[in-house]
């Protein structure tokens, strides 16, 4: 169990790993995540479940290498095992037949969006997906999304692919064309979710976001992942990770994400240049 069955690079710093855990593959629902540990001295950290294959008994993790822990994970090869893997955690996405839905993914946020889009489509929704990236080479999963829904719009900040601009520019285009949506999802960096929250609020579209605070235990016992939603304290690991995007205090989330920046920077650098190898 926990064996890395396949490992593929799907972007400059983005990897896709299929990990064997048959029961987890059966139980995982869209919107849920796992907590993993890669080494004995390593930290516990969350990754969303991007896909699950019940025949093969594997779950798919797609992650960007952003620090020491993801770097250690990326260094693992096919055939090796992940030390600790626990899930499925979090409340699954509420999948219903809403009608016409808008699903917006930014950067690595496209990965957790994928299973949600698949499930919404299977439930009979018309799904419009907006995939945003800084540039063409950072765009991931476009083919996979197009296999699920015909209506996929790509936007890149630098215009190297698709529409030049942000995902919010695409939303503005759609709204200007008279498009109506019954519900929207947005997953991506905090500034992106904050911007989409404003755009959808202005357009009168209910919004769900999936939050990515720092986590330790993932089961609601430490409160480290607390976020403020509608003025109330919620734990992203057991109350979320999805919340009403118009109620989330994104500023508080952004602040809390930076609390260990100094150590993260140092550890990442030390790891990158190969010091402190065990």
């Amino acid at each position, binding site marked *: 169990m926990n064996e890395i069955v396949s490992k593929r690079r799907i972007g400059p710093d983005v990897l896709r790993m299929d990990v064997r855990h048959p029961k987890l593959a059966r139980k995982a629902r869209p919107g849920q995540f796992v907590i993993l540990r890669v080494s004995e001295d390593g930290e516990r950290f969350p990754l969303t479940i991007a896909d699950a294959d019940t025949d093969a008994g594997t779950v798919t993790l797609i992650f960007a290498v952003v620090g020491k822990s993801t770097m250690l994970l990326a260094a693992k090869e096919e055939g090796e095992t992940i030390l*600790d893997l626990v899930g499925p955690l979090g409340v699954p996405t509420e999948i219903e037949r809403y009608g016409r839905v808008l699903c917006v993914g930014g950067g690595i946020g496209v990965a957790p969006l994928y299973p949600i889009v698949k499930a919404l489509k299977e439930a009979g929704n018309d799904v419009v997906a907006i995939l945003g990236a800084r540039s063409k080479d950072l765009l991931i999963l476009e083919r996979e999304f197009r296999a699920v829904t015909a209506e996929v719009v790509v936007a890149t900040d630098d215009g190297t692919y698709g529409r030049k601009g942000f995902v919010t520019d695409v939303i503005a285009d759609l709204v200007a064309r008279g498009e109506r949506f019954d519900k929207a999802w947005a997953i991506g960096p905090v500034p992106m979710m904050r911007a989409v929250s404003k755009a959808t609020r202005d357009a009168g579209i209910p919004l769900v976001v999936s939050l990515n605070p720092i986590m330790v235990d993932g089961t609601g016992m430490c*409160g480290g992942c607390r976020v403020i939603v509608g003025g109330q304290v919620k734990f992203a690991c057991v109350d979320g990770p999805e919340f009403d995007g118009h109620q989330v205090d994104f500023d508080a989330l952004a602040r809390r994400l930076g609390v260990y920046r100094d150590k993260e920077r140092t550890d990442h650098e030390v790891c990158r240049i190969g010091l402190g190898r065990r």
Partner: protein
Amino acid sequence: MTDPAGSAGKGARGRTRMPERPPEVRRRDFDEVPQGLSEEQARLEASRCLVCKKPQCVTGCPVGIDIPGFVELIAEGKFEEAADRILLASALPAVCGRVCPQETQCEVKCVLGKKGEPLAVGDLERFAADWKRAHGTCPLPPPAEPSGCKVAIVGSGPAGLTCAGELVALGHGVTILEAFHKTGGVLVYGIPEFRLPKAIVQDEVDRLASRGVRIVTNTVVGKLDTVDDLLGEYDAVFLGVGAGAPMFLGVPGEDLLGVYSANEYLTRTNLMRAYDRQRADTPIARSRRVAVVGGGNVAMDSARTALRLGAEQVSIVYRRSRAELPARAAEVHHAEQEGIAFHLLANPTRILGNDEGWVTGIECIRQELGEPDESGRRRPIAIPGSEFVLDVDTVIVAIGNRPNPIVPKSTPGLETTRRGLIMADPKTGRTTKERAWAGGDIVTGAATVISAMGAGQAAARDIDRYLRSPKPRAWPPVGAARAE
């Protein structure tokens, strides 16, 4: 060799003092504070025991250890036998010898305490357990004949470990399902290394594994498997999931950077070993000045941990007076010796911060005690105009936990109280759900390690009775069970 002076002499001789590392040394590392009795000290202390015909101490022990029995064996120099005597009733003697509040359980009933000082039961228990760990060779008696029954134990804290130990000895197949990557529950994530070395907890767990208990980590029941899934696979389920969901103050500024729940602070330090900044990847704040809000053992542990992580100044803020502090007197004493300041009769009003969102202080208001509230303790009343500010960069909130909702929410038929605690019969641990038992903090709210062990023991014995009773088996409602 017993005291030739006889019982009058025994009472007159003072209680052997447990040697402790000096505060200036120990406040900067994570090694144990009490160093343990030597063989000579242990025999001397053990020989003070009057070996009462009707021992009162035993009635104070939640797991019914034969205290005069093991103490007499120590006095005779039969140290491993003493440990084995304890093991008949307690699965975790090295743990209890360190964290049990003996002073309110067995020792408080000791006859010697009437005129002099009670027998140091806790110190002797620790001595015997440590001796067996270091020198013991005798294996435990073999388990009973296999019953063919399988029991799932959810949670590997003190309740679950004890339940597992009893059931495996009675011949049942036992599997422990633990959510974390390490077993031990609060013994590992909550109680710091300097009060309870993790190697000791690991040894106790290893002993269970060697008896045939199957242990599965990284499994969250309620997420990966529901209790109903387990009941499909096992004959009985014991829920020892603990009361792990931290309470916050609800004051302005609690969302500032540098505010931790005690659970998070201790989990990072203990379970994830963040105190070892060189090795551990898990970060923890580099605090200079810390305020810990709360007065229980968790608050003391948090404060003493903050000191060891390098804080220059650590304070406890507690809203009642010294007499009401729930923490063990010994831990309060240790904290004071280590230089932790106590701001009693004070309660936070808000947490202050700078423009970047970091904590810079905590404003508190002085309290006076009024009439007792529903808990029986005198109610703190704020004194208007008495606000003061403590200059701190970290606030640790150690005001208690609520029950974790994951299991109750995913288990139909499992009734809970208004507060979310699982309803269970106090004598047998039976819940309202057939074939499901529960014990420990998830039933009582936050309490002690030993009371969780007592609940695990009682549930194990009831599970055994139930599994061996002929079918069809009755499942009385929780209230009816109470009347039996």
